[in-house]
């Protein structure tokens, strides 16, 4: 602790909104905290914890209903403008002007902050260098990839050294490489300029890099402390278990998740399952659950403490991200034609946009009932590949067979046999749950009584409220509804485009529990994701970069290829992509 006054002081802060249903909703419920200058601070918590509301209040954009809020020693209620002159704020969706170029966006913010011309040149070159955007200064911001946009947003907030930097979920929808770059920039600036940073995040590995962590849930402060302090809360409860030979780790994980009395949380990782047991749980029962497996204690991590804290807190009230209702029930009985052959065949697939080759010579198969993961950095071509597989985009050349149908010839026929869940919630927001499902039932050719029965059945399976307006659903339920719509016509293959982007660990767990259940019932699942640990749920994964397929195989095979055998998937991914890029650059130099 030093003598300088805290950069943020919050006392008894509360904020109530009117919810979509017209009822008041307490976004911030009596929070008190204080933040020291010169530190890197993380706000973590599930969706609806109040992270964004708190950020906006600190930026002077929302006025508290009650309580005291001082930033840089200034009362925000009295003089928000002075605070806004001195801080920088990067909202979740940073408002870059997409029709302006990278340079023009930077210039605008530099002018607004009154950065003098002589300082500017040096500052810009440093920021462009760090963000690796120097090559793109003339490109319109709208034409940058998601990760580059985020870096440009950060650069715009750092055109001058702010007294405090507020970052609201800077890494949502950003691939692991760009995510690592973002944090490197922030850490460099903390070291060189003595920056104070408050960032909110859904990634626990990011929170682990911070000096101090605040855990929020439902508008209240659950816990705070250094990552080490928090980590210790899970001490002695964390274990790792290896499944019996031939049993996929995710099946064991599913079994454990379904025993909430014994297990707080379980995740597949490197062919094993890492789990947290309930404090003071019945050891004998736990042993019985894991009868055929080898169970070892492991070192606790921040994520373990986070999951533990949330489970303890949510024990009282029902939460949106509670485990899914599908646990015991196989949701889809898609037993039609259970052949052993591949259900998706991709041969020499190419897609060009003008001169630009988005997907180059890609070949892979997906077996029936498999969970297949498509991974890659932003702009790697996985969305293009994905859209071609769904029949949304014709291929330039190559062979593409989905569910035994050649996509180049009979797109409509293939569509009837696939389900698609888009990245963004893309159902009709102002229709009710029932109306949405009823429409998609009709679009898939279900009629009359059959449609009514099928819709009612899926509503029951996914535990949805048929009369709720879709747009007002909490994020977790929106996801369920989107899945329900995608599964309505009992497709053989389900395509999921970044289904967990922006979703907290709790909701991600319940989502993957549903996917494993689906796979057990024989549905083939193709999924893209930015969360590399989620690759562990997949039977096989493919890693793409710059349109090329870099690696294909089981998670274990891919990890072995990267040379990082015992680490996380995240590191393996970064290693593979960087090796490929280095080889490419080397090849170019040699040529």
């Amino acid at each position, binding site marked *: 602790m030093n003598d300088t006054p805290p950069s943020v002081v919050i006392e008894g802060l509360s904020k109530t909104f009117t919810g979509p249903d017209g009822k008041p909703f307490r976004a911030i419920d009596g929070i008190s905290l204080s933040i020291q200058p010169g530190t890197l601070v993380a706000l973590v918590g599930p969706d609806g914890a109040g992270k964004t509301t708190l950020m906006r209040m600190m930026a002077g*954009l*929302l006025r508290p209903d009650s309580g005291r809020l001082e930033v840089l020693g200034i009362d925000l209620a009295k003089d928000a403008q002075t605070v806004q*002159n001195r801080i920088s704020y990067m*909202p979740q969706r940073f*408002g870059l002007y997409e029709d302006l170029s990278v340079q023009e966006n930077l210039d605008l913010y530099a*002018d607004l902050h009154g950065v003098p011309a002589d300082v500017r040149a040096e500052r810009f070159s440093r920021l462009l260098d760090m963000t690796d955007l120097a090559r793109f200064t003339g490109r319109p911001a709208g034409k940058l990839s998601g990760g580059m946009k985020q870096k440009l947003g950060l650069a715009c907030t750092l055109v001058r050294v702010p007294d405090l930097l507020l970052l609201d979920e800077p890494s949502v929808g950003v691939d692991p490489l760009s995510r690592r770059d973002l944090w490197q920039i922030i850490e460099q600036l903390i070291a060189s300029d003595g920056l104070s940073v408050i960032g909110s995040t859904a990634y626990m590995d990011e929170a682990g890099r911070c000096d101090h962590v605040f855990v929020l849930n439902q508008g209240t402060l659950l816990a705070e402390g250094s990552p080490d302090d928090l980590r210790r809360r899970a001490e002695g409860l964390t274990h790792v278990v290896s499944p019996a030979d031939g049993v996929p780790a995710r099946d064991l994980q599913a079994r454990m998740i379904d025993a909430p009395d014994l297990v707080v949380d379980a995740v597949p990782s490197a062919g094993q399952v890492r789990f947290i047991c309930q404090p003071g749980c019945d050891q004998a029962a736990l042993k019985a659950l894991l009868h055929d497996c080898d169970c070892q204690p492991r070192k606790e991590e921040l994520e373990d403490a986070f999951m533990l804290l949330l489970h303890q807190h949510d024990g009282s009230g029902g939460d949106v991200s509670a485990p899914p209702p599908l646990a015991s029930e196989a949701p889809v009985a898609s037993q039609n034609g259970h052949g052993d052959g591949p259900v998706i065949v991709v041969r020499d697939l190419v897609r060009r946009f003008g001169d630009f080759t988005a997907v180059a010579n890609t070949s892979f198969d997906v077996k029936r009932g498999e969970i297949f993961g498509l991974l890659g950095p932003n702009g790697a071509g996985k969305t293009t590949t994905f859209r071609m597989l769904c029949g949304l985009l014709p291929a330039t050349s190559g062979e593409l067979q989905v569910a035994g149908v050649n996509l180049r010839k009979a797109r409509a026929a293939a569509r009837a046999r696939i389900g698609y869940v888009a990245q963004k919630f893309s159902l009709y927001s102002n229709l009710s749950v029932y109306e949405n499902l009823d429409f998609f039932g009709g679009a898939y050719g279900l009629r009359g009584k059959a449609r009514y029965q099928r819709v009612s059945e899926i509503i029951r399976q996914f535990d949805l409220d048929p009369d709720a307006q879709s747009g007002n659903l909490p994020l977790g339920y929106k996801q369920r509804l989107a899945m329900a719509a995608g599964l309505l016509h009992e497709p053989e293959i389900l395509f999921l485009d970044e289904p967990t982007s922006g979703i907290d660990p709790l909701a991600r767990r319940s989502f993957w529990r549903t996917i494993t259940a689906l796979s057990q019932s024989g549905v083939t699942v193709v999924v893209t994701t930015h969360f590399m640990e989620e690759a562990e749920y997949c039977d096989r994964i493919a890693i793409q970069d710059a349109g090329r397929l870099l690696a294909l195989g089981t998670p274990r095979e891919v990890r072995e290829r990267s040379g990082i055998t015992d680490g996380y998937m995240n590191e393996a991914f970064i290693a593979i992509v960087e090796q490929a890029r280095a080889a490419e650059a080397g090849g170019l130099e040699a040529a």
Partner: protein
Amino acid sequence: MRDSAFRIRLVALVRKETRQMLRDRSNLLVGLLLPVALILLFGYGLSFDVKNAPVALVMDNNSAAAREAVSGIGGSRYLVPVRVGSMAQADALLRAGKVDAIVRVPIDFAEQQARGKAQVQLILNGIDSTTATSLEAYINGALGTVTLRRIDRGTGGATGVGGVSLVQRIWFNEAGISTWYLVPGLVVLIMTLVGAFLTSLLIAREWERGTLEALFVTPVRPLELVLAKIVPYLAIGLIDLVMCVVAARLLFEVPIRGSLLAILLTSMAYLLVSLLMGLFISGTTRNQFAASQMALLASFMPALMLSGFVFDLRNVPLAVKIASQIVPATHFMGVIKTLFLAGTDWGMVLRGCAILLGYAVVLLALTWRTVRKRLD
């Protein structure tokens, strides 16, 4: 020091708005191409003037008296008589729109005239009542010339009772060409279009795309945001004004009798009102679709219907007249028509500008509030 920071920020924001405006083709289409299209359409396409209207003449009585009675129609420069054999034929022509009116001299015309009760039937097509009303006046006038000619012939004679002749002069628009008043009115319409319709999307778009949130947490002041959005569109509006004036003068030969300075000043004042109206709507709705609908309803429709553009305010009921006085466009319309056709009446110009600037100040204050840097 404070001043220069303000200036730097304002210049930066103006530059940003200008670039955004120039890079969006649809903006320029509405801002520059639509005005050109409107100028040409209004100048060449729209006319209320009746010229060479075909009139069917049905002479059921072909006496000399009857022929004399309708002789005026041939002499009128507005009418072209078409001889038709029977009423049934004329009826068909009128229904098909081949003639605009039927003048029928009944079979007993000569007898009735002798009794002093002669009648001529006039049948008009009321579907286009505007044309019909004009035609009625022209035909009445044409039939009336007969009487006057008789008086003329009788001058100094026994029947010399004298008569009144009309010396008619239409001031400001001697030939009575509707283009002359439509084109100055078009200036109002175009200023409204560029002002309210285009800007109604501006703030709403920034809310929808989430660009304001980051902008708010900078030293930028709400007033700077509003002013910066006005400047580029003010420029577009002025380009449109110049196009209107040039086209009016060169293409349509509308006399511009007032001072150009006065035209510029009042147009600027109105453009400001209109821009601020659009920005206010944009900031209040925060939704592009709703904003554009509102802008059409709240500014464009009144400017078209209630300002005295096409429909003379003398003709409307009191309630509509009162409503029209609330519409800023009405005040601009009065001044701009006078400036184009009558000449500079500085009293009128200054009063008009004062009213418009009053609106501008109120709207600026209201718009300012909509971009106060808060999300709740």
